[in-house]
């Protein structure tokens, strides 16, 4: 047996975007075992939501769980609170929530792709991807008022309407983005150097994805067709606006890139359909009720299934709020998928997981 070395990476490391820690056991540069620790940024948000804040304020608090997918958190929380209040939100609010979720997915996927390029040693592609991503941040600011952490979904509906000139701007910017996306697809798909780094790296099989309960693009890249938008339509009508499942089969970094890029086309189509068919209605359903009972909600965030559990007791303050972020579901698979890979591939593999410890540790 070759001599084994233990190599730590993180919690602060130049190739890690998030404060997580891996300890790799390696033999001749090959990773044979991995340990993960995720305990660096617990902020006690669930506790704060059940003690310091009233249930209507909580949607603004959970928006701070994550800068990237705050719309997913505020929407999931609003939905679970609406279940406890037993109210139905206006149709226009549902469409506007889906619009912002898909704009958010565009910027989140592009951020992940750019970091995969960077960690694969392709800095020019990192900069190009980040440059093309900028439009989505500007559109989110135009719709929500913030580039990140948008307090758009509130209990009962949405906080802002979509102005006609903003809707027009979205359509124009998306039209300009499509050739840029085609260019990115061509590079990520066909660049020989990048494919040497990404093909076969960090692969998991569909069976492993099922066994380890993987979610999001990580699962879909392995051929596991799991997407909450396909499974639940009671709260947001995803299929009505053109949702389509995207899967790949090889389960490696390359397949994850492809899933994210192909999902961008789906997001563009969904946004265009929403704007073209945006119904007229109020934005908020008002109620004076207090949350009662318990409820759960699942929502497809850019990284996968986001789960909220809430329990109310007919007072202003919730009895319990539980948040399960997508990365949390993927931790078990993240540690297994390194095995057999070169240590040098680890940074690109980690970036392709798109981990969010801010969400996971909350």
């Amino acid at each position, binding site marked *: 047996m070759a001599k084994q070395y233990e190599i730590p990476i993180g919690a602060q490391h130049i190739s890690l975007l998030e404060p997580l820690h891996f300890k790799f056991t390696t033999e001749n540069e090959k990773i044979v075992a991995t340990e993960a620790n995720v305990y660096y940024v617990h902020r*006690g948000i669930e506790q704060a939501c059940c003690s310091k804040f009233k249930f209507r304020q909580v949607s603004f608090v959970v928006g701070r769980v994550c800068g990237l997918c705050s719309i997913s958190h505020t929407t999931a929380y609003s939905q679970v609170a609406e279940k406890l209040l037993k109210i139905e939100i206006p149709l226009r609010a549902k469409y506007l929530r889906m619009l912002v979720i898909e704009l958010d997915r565009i910027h989140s996927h592009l951020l992940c792709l750019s970091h995969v390029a960077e960690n694969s040693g392709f800095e020019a592609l990192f900069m190009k991807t980040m440059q093309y991503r900028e439009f989505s941040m500007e559109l989110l600011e135009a719709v929500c008022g913030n580039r990140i952490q948008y307090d758009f979904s509130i209990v009962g509906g949405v906080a802002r309407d979509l102005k006609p000139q903003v809707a027009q701007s979205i359509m124009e910017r998306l039209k300009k983005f499509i050739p840029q996306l085609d260019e990115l697809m061509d590079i990520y798909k066909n660049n020989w150097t990048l494919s040497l780094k990404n093909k076969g790296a960090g692969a998991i099989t569909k069976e492993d994805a099922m066994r380890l309960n993987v979610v999001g693009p990580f699962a879909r890249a392995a051929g596991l067709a799991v997407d909450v938008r396909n*499974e639940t339509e009671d709260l947001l009508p995803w299929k009505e606006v053109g949702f389509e499942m995207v899967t790949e089969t090889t389960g490696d970094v390359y397949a994850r890139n492809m899933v994210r890029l192909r999902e961008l086309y789906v997001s563009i189509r969904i946004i265009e359909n929403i704007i073209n068919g945006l119904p007229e209605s109020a934005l908020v359903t008002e109620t004076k009720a207090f949350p009662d009972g318990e409820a759960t909600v*699942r929502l497809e965030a850019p990284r996968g299934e986001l789960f909220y559990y809430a329990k109310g007791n007919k007072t202003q303050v919730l009895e319990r709020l539980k948040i399960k972020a997508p990365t949390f579901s993927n931790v078990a698979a993240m540690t297994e998928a390194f095995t057999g890979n070169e240590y040098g591939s680890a940074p690109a593999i980690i970036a392709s997981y798109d981990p969010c410890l801010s969400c996971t540790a909350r």
Partner: protein
Amino acid sequence: MKKIETTLLNLKNDIAAFYKPDLHHFMVMNAVEVGDKIEVQWFFSDYAHPCETTCFFALISPHEEIPSIKDIVVSAWVAEAELVDLMNIKVENTQKGFVLEPDFESGPLRKKK
């Protein structure tokens, strides 16, 4: 959400009889304080459309140890480790120190009496 009550004695048998990796997706564990007891919950969804959420739950005393379901649901170790750290619940073969530092005060999400 479909809730199914179980006991610590029957938990592993109940989940083993229910869980099929190609049909069901294990989401997370949760714990809610109910008076002097704690309701521990195991959440599953299925891959079908439309999908249903199933919750197994057991009422336990704060000092009882719950059995691990890792041998049935491989990825459950993450949720079990989180419950140990955040709710100070004893889980079979699970140490503290995964979600929080090992020397952190146990159970920060438990209500202060």
